[in-house]
């Protein structure tokens, strides 16, 4: 035990905060992530992450905590996406990529301007790649409340989301307000992206959202199992990431420690790959699901 946890781990204040907040955020991201992947909106999540980068940079520029920037720009973008119907596209496409480029360009500008006016070094690194160890205490209530809000939204909408992902026509015929539900979910997604960005940075936030969820979908067959597995995977990833990040202060190069985001991303991807090895292809069945792919889907990446 002594070799896994370096001295001072259990007594450290920042570690307590990181573990507590990290757990809540990991659960939220994982649960929202499961529905994101089911609805095929992973790319919408990635888009929101890029826009959150702009928001965080802007917030930093005006001297506000980056979480507010992530949140404001993320939810704003989600509302915009809903109005223009962009989030219904399943794949990456040129238009969204180029427009996101503008968002990233703006982020570059904001960060540059910010480093001109203030002298905090490494702040841009924190926005881009996160640090759960330096969460501002005053934002903790907001983080928790947002997480609970996003979680509650998804839990209340769970059945309706599943039905809509099965067939939006069936859902609509049964009186489900499909568009309103979609918007509410997108807001929950935007909040989750903002929360993940606080933990591991805006640029990498997709990993915490999609990774545990995708891993869970490989392992679990039923929605309930999928959600619990994802949450467990997310929490485990964040805990191990925090432990390793803390321990890494003693690893070379001395004194600074490796970024927690690196560990979280690596663990997430590693977990996903490991489950890929275990899963066997179903025998003797021709999945009808392949016939249901729409043409846009078939022509996506590379």
């Amino acid at each position, binding site marked *: 035990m002594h070799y896994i946890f370096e001295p001072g781990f259990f007594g450290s204040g920042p570690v307590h905060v990181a573990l507590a907040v990290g757990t809540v955020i990991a659960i939220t991201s994982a649960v929202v992530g*499961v529905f994101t992947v*089911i609805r*095929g909106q992973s790319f919408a999540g990635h888009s929101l992450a890029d826009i959150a980068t702009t928001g965080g940079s802007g917030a930093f520029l005006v001297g506000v905590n980056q979480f507010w920037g992530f949140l404001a720009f993320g939810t704003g973008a989600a509302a915009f996406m809903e109005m223009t119907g962009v989030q219904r596209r399943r794949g990456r496409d040129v238009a969204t990529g180029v427009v996101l480029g503008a968002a990233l360009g703006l982020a570059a500008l904001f960060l540059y301007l910010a480093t001109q006016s203030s002298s905090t070094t490494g702040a841009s690194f924190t926005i881009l790649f996160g640090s759960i160890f330096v969460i501002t205490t005053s934002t903790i209530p907001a983080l928790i409340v947002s997480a609970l809000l996003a979680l509650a939204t998804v*839990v*209340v*909408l*769970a*059945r*309706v989301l*599943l*039905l809509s*992902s*099965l*067939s*939006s*026509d*069936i*859902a*609509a*015929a*049964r*009186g*489900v307000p499909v568009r309103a539900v979609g918007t509410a979910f997108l807001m929950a997604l935007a909040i989750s992206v903002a929360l993940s960005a606080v933990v591991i940075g805006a640029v990498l936030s997709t990993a915490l959202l999609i990774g545990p969820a995708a891993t*869970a*979908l*490989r392992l*679990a*067959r*039923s*929605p309930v*199992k*999928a959600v619990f597995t994802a949450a467990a995977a997310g929490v485990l990833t964040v805990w191990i990431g925090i432990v390793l990040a803390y321990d890494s202060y003693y690893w070379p190069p001395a004194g600074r420690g490796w970024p927690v985001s690196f560990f979280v991303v690596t663990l997430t991807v590693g977990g996903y790959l490991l489950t890929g090895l275990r899963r066997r292809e*179903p025998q003797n*069945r*021709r*999945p*009808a*699901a*392949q*016939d*249901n792919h729409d043409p846009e889907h078939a022509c996506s990446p590379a």
Partner: protein
Amino acid sequence: MADDLLRLENVSVRLGGREILEDVSFSIRPGEFTGLIGPNGAGKTTLLRVILGLQPVTSGEVLLDGAPRPHRDSSIGYVPQKLAIEPDMPLRVRDVVSLGLDGQKFGLRLPSRARRERVSDMLTAVGAQRYADARVGELSGGEQQRVMIAHALISRPRLLLLDEPLANLDISSEQGIVSVLARLARAEHVAVLLSAHDMNPLMPVMDRIVYAAAGRVAVGGTDQVVQPEVLSRLYGRHVDVIRVHGRILVVAAPEGVDEAEVAAEDAGVIR
């Protein structure tokens, strides 16, 4: 007339400058099995969507039990043609059928034994018990259809709509689905409106036929409707009806090769 479950009166739908449905009227009585037959592009899917309330009409009325269709209606079940299912979706067959009971409700619900049993019974009724715990995305076409029928029927609708359920199925699966449907519909006294481009698999179970072509319909018994004069008037061009070995083929006369091929394809000659 008064006891019609569903009645369409002079329904027209105009979309994008085109008249998709033109003055369509017919009715369905409780427990009746009706085939909505016609070539691709005849407006069958649009018609079904109108009945479901997914497609607004340009003129005309859709009446359920004599009154305009309510917004939140659970008396019509629906099996769509396309499902957006990915192979990795975390939905087992029994989860899908369970959603048929309460998938439109908000909030959480606790698991109950009564519900589990009801789902199980439904699965047995459609013959899907065997793969009840398989992921719905890994099923074959025929298996998926059975599951979606179970999903639609479990909430005890009075009318079941199916959009081209037999397309993309091999012949034995086709026959399986038709017999399951007919049996269940009779047992539960559910009216069925099923669209298809080939009427032959449905001949043994159809009570009436609504033949749709070029946005118009002809309604009645098979012998009444599937006649050259009736169909020619419907299609707006000369159409032949050929009966061979108990099967019916609808063939357009050679005006342009395309139309003949399409009609013959629709009638099941070319697969």
